[in-house]
């Protein structure tokens, strides 16, 4: 299997005057089409790691390779282009743009990519919204939806460009156990049908135990890396 993602000797130090190192010499690779989880205590460095994987943040040292391209050497424009084409995000806290509806939020990454809004793409966005169970609130403003509904909208949004990789930070953090199960089924279905690679940060053992690989981060280091 091809590695779609590779991290080599990643260190991350926050701050310039008072330095805190939060990641230590992380080496990881992810196979194309794999379904992975990252677990670990609060503050262990999971989100930091995911942001570096997603090129939203730069490592202090080390290399990130996406589809064999070293992103450290890329211009910001090129980086933005590769990110838009390759990666879908579901963030831990920051879900949606409040002044837009669910549907408009879902279409956003497509527009950013420079796509024209056609009937087809709207239909596709609606299909994804329906897939995450939001048929009846798709025209609500983001602020007029529950936390869990916003989160599911964010998942539909991550799917719209059909990225090769989806990075999800606590995608079921606010959800009850039935909705959590539904979201898992949804992500797994996309993984199986489209072959999307998933890296999911989760505190939920019900999710982690169903992924094919569990990576545990402890104090900025990989403590455990196991495959089913």
């Amino acid at each position, binding site marked *: 299997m091809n590695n779609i993602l590779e991290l080599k000797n990643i260190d991350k130090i926050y701050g310039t005057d008072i330095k805190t190192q939060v990641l230590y010499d992380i080496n990881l690779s992810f196979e194309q089409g794999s379904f992975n989880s990252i*677990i670990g205590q609060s503050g262990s460095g999971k989100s930091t790691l995911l942001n570096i994987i997603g090129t939203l943040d730069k490592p202090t040292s080390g290399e990130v390779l996406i589809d064999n391209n070293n992103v450290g050497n890329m211009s910001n424009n090129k980086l933005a282009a590769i990110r838009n084409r390759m990666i879908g995000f579901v963030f831990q806290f920051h879900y949606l743009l409040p002044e837009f509806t669910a549907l408009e939020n879902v279409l956003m990454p497509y527009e950013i990519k420079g796509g024209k809004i056609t009937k087809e793409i709207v239909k596709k966005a609606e299909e994804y919204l329906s897939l995450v169970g939001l048929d009846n609130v798709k025209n609500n403003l983001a602020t007029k939806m529950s936390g869990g509904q916003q989160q599911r909208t964010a998942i539909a949004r991550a799917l719209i460009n059909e990225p090769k990789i989806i990075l999800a930070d606590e995608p079921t953090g606010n959800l009850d156990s039935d909705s959590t199960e539904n979201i898992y089924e949804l992500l797994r279905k996309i993984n199986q049908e489209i072959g999307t690679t998933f890296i999911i940060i989760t505190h939920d*053992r019900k999710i*982690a*135990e169903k992924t094919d690989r569990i990576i545990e981060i402890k104090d900025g280091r990989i*403590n455990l*890396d*196991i495959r*089913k």
Partner: protein
Amino acid sequence: MNNIYEKFNLLLVEENKEEATKFILELLQNKEIDILELYMDILTPSLNLMQCMEDKRLCIWKEHVRTAIIRTIVECCFPYVLKKRDELNYSKKGTAIVLCPPEEYHDLGARMVTDFFTISGYHAIYVGSNTPYSDFRNAIDIIKPNIVAISVSNYYNMVVTKKVIKEIKEVVGYPIKIVVGGNAFNNDTEKYKIVGADYYAKTYEDIKNIAGDEVAL
């Protein structure tokens, strides 16, 4: 042996607890099967090779019913376990405790392995499923076992298993041996190293070998 297995499995498919139990106990009584063979060749595969062919929605239900029948049989076997131990008469070893980590509920494999430890000459203590982390540690301080055997079925529980093993090795001031087993380890016999265990065990032979190592220490 194949005949016995097939007949037993038919009874399990029918979920006929009464006949299944009678069938096995009669075989033991008439010395038509050895207790170790029963565990290794009949009960373990019956537990592991369960296929869910009918309604998928009943899989877990059926797995539980089947497990419960096998559990009844295992508990009925204890006199034969003791008999086997006396017959083989291996030298007396220390204490072995057998348990499952927190949130691990598949414990029948662990229960059967406890009998293997007994037969191998250990004072074997079966603690059971879902053993809380702190009890685990405190019990080790009090009992001071030579061996701790941890059974893990769900691979997520390897996370807590690694943590527990690390802590046990840090606090215990004597050479304790950690054995792991169960479905989480079965597909890769090197996996036990990842959690920091000393041995991986699946069969009675494995336990016997570990017991042999212990004596050599």
